């Protein structure tokens, strides 16, 4: 997946403000239940885990299952107490991990 993940998050927040974080990654999320035209099962290949941390501390993480549609979109919120960096990671069945970061400034 050459596409970079998409993250929507405010650049700035007031101290202790709860901000909304939207993330989306381009991924086929092949369920492992479909057959190709010759009748063979198409092997499962999904994003199986997503994690978000802020300045190294966990904020949100989840496991994703094969029934989740292509291009998984996750939205959650977090209280921001200080300026810092949100780190995001998506773990693929093939072992690769796609990462991204977004800065936020407390004003």
């Amino acid at each position, binding site marked *: 997946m050459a596409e970079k993940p998409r993250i929507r998050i405010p650049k700035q927040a007031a101290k202790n403000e709860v901000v909304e974080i939207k993330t989306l990654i381009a991924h086929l999320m092949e369920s492992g239940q479909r057959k190709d035209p010759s009748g063979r099962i198409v092997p499962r290949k999904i994003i199986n885990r997503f994690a978000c941390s802020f300045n190294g501390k966990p904020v949100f993480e989840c496991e994703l299952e094969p029934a989740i549609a292509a*291009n998984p979109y996750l939205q959650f919120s977090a209280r921001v107490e200080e300026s810092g960096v949100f780190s995001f990671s998506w773990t693929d069945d093939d072992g690769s991990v796609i990462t991204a970061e977004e800065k936020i400034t407390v004003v």
Partner: protein
Amino acid sequence: MILAASMAGGISMQTRAQNARQAPLAIDGPASPVPWVRYAGWPTRDTSKFNSLTRLVSPAPPKAPLKLEKGLTGDPAAGQKLAADRSRGGSCLACHVMGPAGGADLPGNVGPDLSEIGNAGRDEEWLFNYVNDARVYNSDTVMPPWGTHGIFSESEIGDIVAFLKTLKSPAKFKAALDDPMKRPAPIEQRDNLDALINPAMWLIEERAPALWKATGPAGASCASCHSNPVQAFRTWAAAMPRWEPRLNKVLGVEEFVARHAKATTGQSWLMQSEENTALSTYLRYLANGAPMVVDVAGPEAKGAYQRGEALSTRKIGALNFSCADCHGADKSASKWIRGQWLGELRGQLDHFPTWRTSQQSVWDIRKRFQWCQVAIWADDLPPDAPEYGDLELYLAAQNTGQKLSVPGIRH
């Protein structure tokens, strides 16, 4: 006339001067792969014995209703199964509510509700002929000629007739949504320009701008001549497609991208390639908000429009549908074919190329044409076929004044 293929060096001055009137185009050769090969995974049945947009070969209807020499001995249970068999042209249920057939699961309403046809006083011969080839009674019918086109055999039609004769009470729907007369018209409410909702926006934000700057074999990029596309193309795509005298056919955005890029940058971005779709989507996106206005007044454009109109009413394929049969306001538009809503011609072009959630890919209008044809068991054409140009011009004219909103998002 500008002959384009050899314009590698020093093209920018000349092109700018002539941009408004004659953009360089690679005239020779096709703008799509030759031979055109239908997409993998699309139906492969042989439909060469039926009309297409390029030929008229379908069998003729019977001159008069067929006489049944002896009474039919059909099996109503077999007929009920056939009526709901989706492998036979989508099943009778695609267009008709038919009592218990298929569990009354999402039938369509293109044709009348047949749940009480058994009380209608129609004899076997009339029912047989209507299913065999309804054109013997109604020259305006949109019903496929099941028998004449060999989709159902005589004995299968006999089974269907036997089933029809058993239909004497209104269909029982499991849920209100199953009743096509009560099913609300679908309304697309997603924000098609939000990249978190519409993955086609990724082409606009990343892929197309990168291609715009990519230097081709001729040493130039799109940006060499068009440094500010956002400004330059605010309305351009809303006037496409247009008659192109150098090609002697109607030219749409996608074919323009293929031929213009070839002539200027040397890139080979054939129609429906990933690159072509990205740039065509981008160029139409840049004209978002502009009302569509195509030229159908010039003599050649008028001729193309009239050909397009004629093609839109030509019945093609084994199912014998024309564009107008399904999408004409006076035919089946704004009705249900099974669970799918048939839209009018107006509103069918302003959002193309469009993201198809069911396909996880962006389709341009020519690919949509191709799929329509394959879905009605007709041969598709290469994307650069002149017939598609005529049809696209006719469709664009029906959409005059509609504002572009590209890329769209649809099921």
